């Protein structure tokens, strides 16, 4: 099952990188969002996939009986989802504000901080 997931994750990464290579801000952001989901799936798969056995210890035992699903990747992913969601929300607002102020969502035209054709630095003294 891991192999199938690995291929799927590869496809998702490819899609996100393709989007992030775009010049349009909104596509870059969609790429970032897909990227974080690809990573979540990657962690999930890296923790090994085990079907339908929750990691609950029966009352009579002290350790789990038999193989169970690995709870740690789920905890990691939950953390990562919360973080990536808040970052995505922030970046979305930032991109919208930048679009409002700068009048463009083309990364090549966003040159306010580093303007084109600046005066050259003083050469003589």
């Amino acid at each position, binding site marked *: 099952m891991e192999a199938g997931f690995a291929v799927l994750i590869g496809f998702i990464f490819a899609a996100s990188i393709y989007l992030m290579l775009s010049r349009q801000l909104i596509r870059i952001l969609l790429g*970032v969002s897909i990227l*974080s989901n690809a990573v979540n799936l990657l962690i999930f798969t*890296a923790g090994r996939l085990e079907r339908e056995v929750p990691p609950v210890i029966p009352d009579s035992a002290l350790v789990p009986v038999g193989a169970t699903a690995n709870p740690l990747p789920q905890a990691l992913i939950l953390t990562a989802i919360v973080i990536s969601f808040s970052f995505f929300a922030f*970046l979305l607002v930032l991109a919208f504000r*930048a679009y409002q*102020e*700068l009048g463009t969502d083309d990364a090549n035209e966003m040159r306010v*901080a580093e303007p084109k054709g600046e005066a050259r630095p*003083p050469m003589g003294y």
Partner: protein
Amino acid sequence: MAVSDHAADVSHAMITTPVAPADWLVVTPIIITILGGVFCLMTRKQTKIQPRIAIATLGLLMLSNFGLLARVMEKGVITMVMGQWLPPYGIAFTVDATGAMLALIASIVAFATALYGVGDSDAASRRYGFYPFLMLLMTGVSGTFLTGDIFNLYVWFEVLLISSFGLLILGSDKAQLDGAVKYGILNLIATTLFLIATGYLYGLVGTLNMADIPRSVAALPDRAPITTVAMLYLLAFAMKAAAFPVNFWLPASYHTPRIAVAGVFAGLLTKVGIYALMRTMVMLLPIHHALLADVLAVVAVATMISGALGAMAQSDLRRALGYLVISSIGSMLAGIAVSTALSLTGTILYAIHSILVMTGLYFVTGMAGRMSGTFALRQLGGLYGKSPLLALAFIILAMSFSGLPPTSGFWAKVLLVDASLKSDWPWLAGSILVAGFLTTIALARIGLYAFWRGGPEGTPDGTAFAYAESADMNAPDVTAAYTGMWLALGLLVGLSLFIGLAPDGLVAIARAGAAGLVDPSNYIGSVFGGAGGQP
């Protein structure tokens, strides 16, 4: 009886001895800064009280970190496990000399920034959260230096990243939004790469505890997949540290926020990347470091030379400083590339020095800009006549940055060059010296234009340009504003000089830190051995 069985079993899964009171210092930096941030947020509208809370909190943070460093130097590595789970389960905070020293210096710089911010942050930027964000930035930075769990390190990276976003767009003018878009997206991609690498590492070794990883990696039969992980870590942290081919977010954004913010960013954020590189490349994955050492060395040279050349080509003071930040990162990377105890001592010392001096240079620039009303090198001039004290501070910081005695930069560079020569990297040593020479030119050029010449471009030789005293110059709250700035600057310049004149104590600490990175047996022993409470 099931109940008594469970009760008897606790010592197999948990640490039963209580934590020694002094060891609580491991987590106090986090608690102090979060609480300080909360109080600042609650007094969001009382812009006059906020700086006092922030300065008191960060002063407390300095004391706490000082106590922690003293404790670490006395007792060795300290570990505290959240929830008292036996390692490697549960999140461990493990502090060694490197982490404690960097946390202390970071808190000193944050304290200086809070002082500088008294004058630099206006009421609006305080209402939008300058001080709360500064506190939470320090939560992230402290957590990064103190944690002993690689996934937890990722979480602290994100805490400091989101706080830095808040600080970066405080004024929300056009240039800031433009810079923040590039800074935000590229840094988020870098931390995502870090997360990918951590996911792979977990899949391979099944542990996230930084003391457990070196043992588990060494026990793996096949090295090849770990090399991929090492490469991913290198790329992710090189991006965070602003190493050469992946550093274009830094010059695009660092000149846009207000100077107090730019100063603390330049001091702390890139060094956090360097710290993470030292931890992962040297301590966690040492065998794979050997494979990547050449890559690191080439990146180091490219970073320091391109940064110095970039600084020379700028006509805006703040943008020139952005390139100088990059140049200093190159020197630290050189130490990581060589990766002997001596070179890492150099890297740690250089990081400490660079945190102090870079922030100081930004503060000088901010005051120069405030006094003359511009940051453009063509329009600056005559600042020596305006404020000889500022010129003196600039000269000391510039000498320190270029690595000239009697300042902190000298010893750091001596150690790095010495280590490179001893490990047979003559071209690396040569590059450090060439980069030092180029930064000397870049800074001398700034000194010549901004401070030494009589006035802005067009002022005839031999005449002094009289700045119009701005109307509010002598108003009482402006004088108070300058007091905070001078205090902050004095603290940083004084420390740089002090380290330059009496480096022994700091070198001893850096040496202990480097020894712990090269041979992590004490680190591992602290987590799995005795200090955590379990024999």
